[in-house]
């Protein structure tokens, strides 16, 4: 490079530009905070929660229902509406006047069921909008990604609908909490019912959504059914949001399998189940037995999408609006008055998570994240629709009862699509946190 014409004057000019450039960052370095400050602690009259939900993509139905539940939770926390589960939760420190005297406000972002988009959205809510807590989900891939981000930024993540073992297993984080049950528990709950209904001599064929949730559910159900004595013919991975599953379903009949297990969720499950039924799978006989379809994770929203195809299909569910307890009745009533439909299990888990976080802040007496984490860890509560529930400190997983459900043969209306076969008590769903490995990491407060 020739510097012939790089004279003194030009040098001065260049130095000035460089000087401004170097000095500019200093302008933005924040001053030191007091010792007990964590990311985005509210200073004004409101506290901001961030909802990170899929409003587009394969899980959009669940995402929209989650958003409704979050909005309802904010209403109830601020003392508007009929209070919902605030009336039944016990013990509770919530007074219905916001959280620690501050009104709850919220911001939202569309996670698009993509890890990049969801992280972008979460970062916007944390860095620009000052959200103190992020909640939401619907895809475990997204939940794991956002949970990792929240750990790094020091913001608590209250996972919504995420069913993968990894969320509170291999990828668990100190700042991440999950109320929803997981694939391992689905296996524990489902296996005895499967043995009773379909016998112990069956061959299963898995179609699995190709990401963390699908993998862990396939593994869990495989282990649970093989313990019964079932064989596994084959497990095939399908891309998330595939739309057309015919090429995956045709080989099932020639594989010698007599049970098809669909490890799909959302629109994927609606499509794969409908196509499997249309292909006449359930009218076929293999090995002298009627071919059956099992959907380990089931929800009303999917049942609505799949229509007649869900009749008689077995699966598990975290919660159902038809449960007889007081909390469920209250919540279903306020959700129904507000939106005209009964809430889905996704809605329930998100609503409960929002309340649990608010309650933990009240009990801790502060928004300081490490203190709130302490308040949540090992917290035992009741009256939220799942009976006695424990937030286990070792892996931040909730332990509570879950349901085995079946698609109803003769539904009364379009919301009455599932019947509860069995309520599995939480004692049957306990497991050792060590089996999945992982490490929660530190709870050191970050200043963002």
């Amino acid at each position: 490079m020739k510097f012939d014409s790089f004279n003194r004057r030009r040098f001065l000019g260049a130095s000035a530009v460089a000087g401004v450039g170097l000095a500019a960052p200093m302008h933005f370095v924040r001053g030191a905070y007091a010792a007990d400050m964590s990311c985005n602690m509210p200073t004004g009259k409101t506290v901001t929660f961030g909802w990170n939900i899929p409003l587009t993509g394969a899980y959009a139905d669940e995402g929209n229902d989650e958003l409704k539940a979050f909005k309802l939770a904010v209403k109830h926390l601020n003392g508007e509406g009929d209070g919902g589960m605030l009336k039944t939760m016990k013990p509770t420190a919530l007074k219905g006047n916001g959280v620690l005297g501050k009104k709850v406000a919220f911001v939202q972002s569309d996670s698009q069921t993509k890890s990049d988009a969801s992280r972008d959205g979460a970062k916007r809510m944390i860095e620009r909008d000052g959200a103190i807590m992020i909640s939401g989900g619907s895809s475990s891939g997204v939940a794991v990604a956002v949970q990792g981000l929240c750990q790094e930024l020091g913001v608590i993540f209250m996972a919504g609908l995420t069913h993968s073992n990894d969320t509170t297993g291999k990828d668990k984080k100190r700042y991440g909490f999950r109320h929803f049950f997981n694939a391992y528990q689905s296996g524990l709950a489902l296996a005895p019912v499967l043995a009773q209904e379909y016998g112990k001599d069956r061959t299963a064929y898995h179609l699995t959504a190709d990401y963390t949730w699908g993998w862990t559910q396939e593994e869990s159900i495989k282990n649970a059914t093989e313990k019964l004595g079932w064989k596994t013919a084959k497990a095939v991975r399908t891309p998330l949001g595939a739309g057309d599953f015919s090429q995956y379903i045709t080989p099932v009949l020639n594989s010698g399998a007599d049970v098809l297990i669909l490890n799909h969720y959302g629109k994927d499950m609606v499509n794969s189940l409908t196509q499997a039924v249309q292909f006449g799978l359930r009218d076929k006989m293999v090995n002298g037995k009627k071919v059956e379809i099992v959907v380990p994770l089931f929800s009303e929203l999917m049942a609505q999408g799949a229509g007649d195809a869900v009749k008689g299909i077995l699966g598990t569910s975290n919660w159902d609006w038809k449960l007889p307890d007081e909390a469920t009745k209250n919540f279903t009533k306020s959700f129904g008055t507000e939106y005209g439909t009964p809430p889905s299990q996704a809605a329930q888990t998100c609503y409960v998570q929002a309340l649990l976080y608010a309650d933990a802040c009240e009990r801790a007496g502060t928004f300081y994240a490490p203190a709130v984490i302490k308040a949540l860890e090992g917290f035992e509560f009741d009256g939220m629709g799942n009976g006695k529930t424990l937030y286990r400190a070792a892996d931040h997983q909730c332990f509570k009862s879950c349901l085995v459900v079946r698609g109803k043969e003769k539904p009364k209306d379009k919301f009455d699509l599932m019947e509860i076969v069995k309520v599995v008590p939480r004692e049957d769903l306990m497991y050792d946190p060590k089996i999945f490995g992982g490490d929660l990491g530190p709870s050191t407060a970050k200043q963002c």
Partner: protein
Amino acid sequence: MWNNPARNDWFLLAGFSLVVLCLPLILEPIGAAYPALMQKFCIFGIFAIGFNILFGLTGYLSFGHAAFLGVGSYAAVWSFKLLTMNAIPAIVFAIVCAAAFALVIGYVSLKRSGIYFSILTLAFAQMSYNLAYSVLTPLTNGETGLQLSLQDPRIIDALFVAPQAGLPRVNLFGTYTSGGGYAGFYLCAAALIVCFFIALRIFRSPFGLMLRAIKSNQNRMRYTGFNTRPYLLAAFVISGMYAGLAGGLMAVTDPLVGAERMQWTASGEVVLMTILGGAGTLVGPVLGAAVIKYFENIFSSFSVTTLQGVFGFLPDAIERPLVSFLSLFVGDGWNLTLGVVFMLIVIFLPGGLMEGLRRIWSLFDRRPGGGDKVPAAQTQPAE
């Protein structure tokens, strides 16, 4: 190639640097002044500048550039996992891997030109996406995305520092660039300025002239005795390296990479950015990248309530229909708005936003002949 730049170019560089470094102040009024988004502006600016070196200069439209971005990201994360959390080796590794990948794909794809070239690059990119999504799961962790874990060896870090509790953060010699904060943004901004300078030098060099000559008439180039292939391949690899750097920086500011980064929509996005800003101009692609990322992140966060707030002063009879109409274009509908904006620009300003700026400038430029300087947008014949 490296003779001293003209005085105007120094001004351009100085002005550009000043704007980039002052982004936090400039973007404050439009609600985009937070590090994560400004990082995205810089990173996609780099990506688009690199794409423009190929598309703007040679006219070769690659529809698979996201593949290099993805390769860069995966390479960087693997460097974090295996070697060290320092950003420099990760960035170098990302650029080298993307360059090698671009060399292979470029060598094959550049055997054809025009639409065939576009289709070939698209096919390669889609292939890479599918490989990353399912076939190469051990290497890429599929749909879930590759991320750091506590079991990673991190050989170099293990030699020098005792591991702390929890996952380590990406650093640049002690300054954390991931996990929020302005350090990551300033690293990206510095990289953008360097990239801009290199692109400027390429545009003004004899090499850049060759590339332009290829765009205007490749046959004539051949008849005058030039072998155009090496020039094209060089441009392709350089532009792949830019994409690799962008991918590497994405990992440096946020060490997690998913396969969707390589999907064809991501490749299409950079084409949109370049055309929106102005293909073949220096600043245009950066501008285009910023506009698209702004739409994606900010426009998509507006809700009906925001609109009601804005139009609250209007009487109800006008406000209601207006808000319900406009709400189609914000929130989930940001793609629609972007589509409309893109259409308007392509129809009325074929030279992109830069042509618009030039037209505005010429309105105020009273020097004799100043008004005629706007080159009429030339329609480029499809090759």
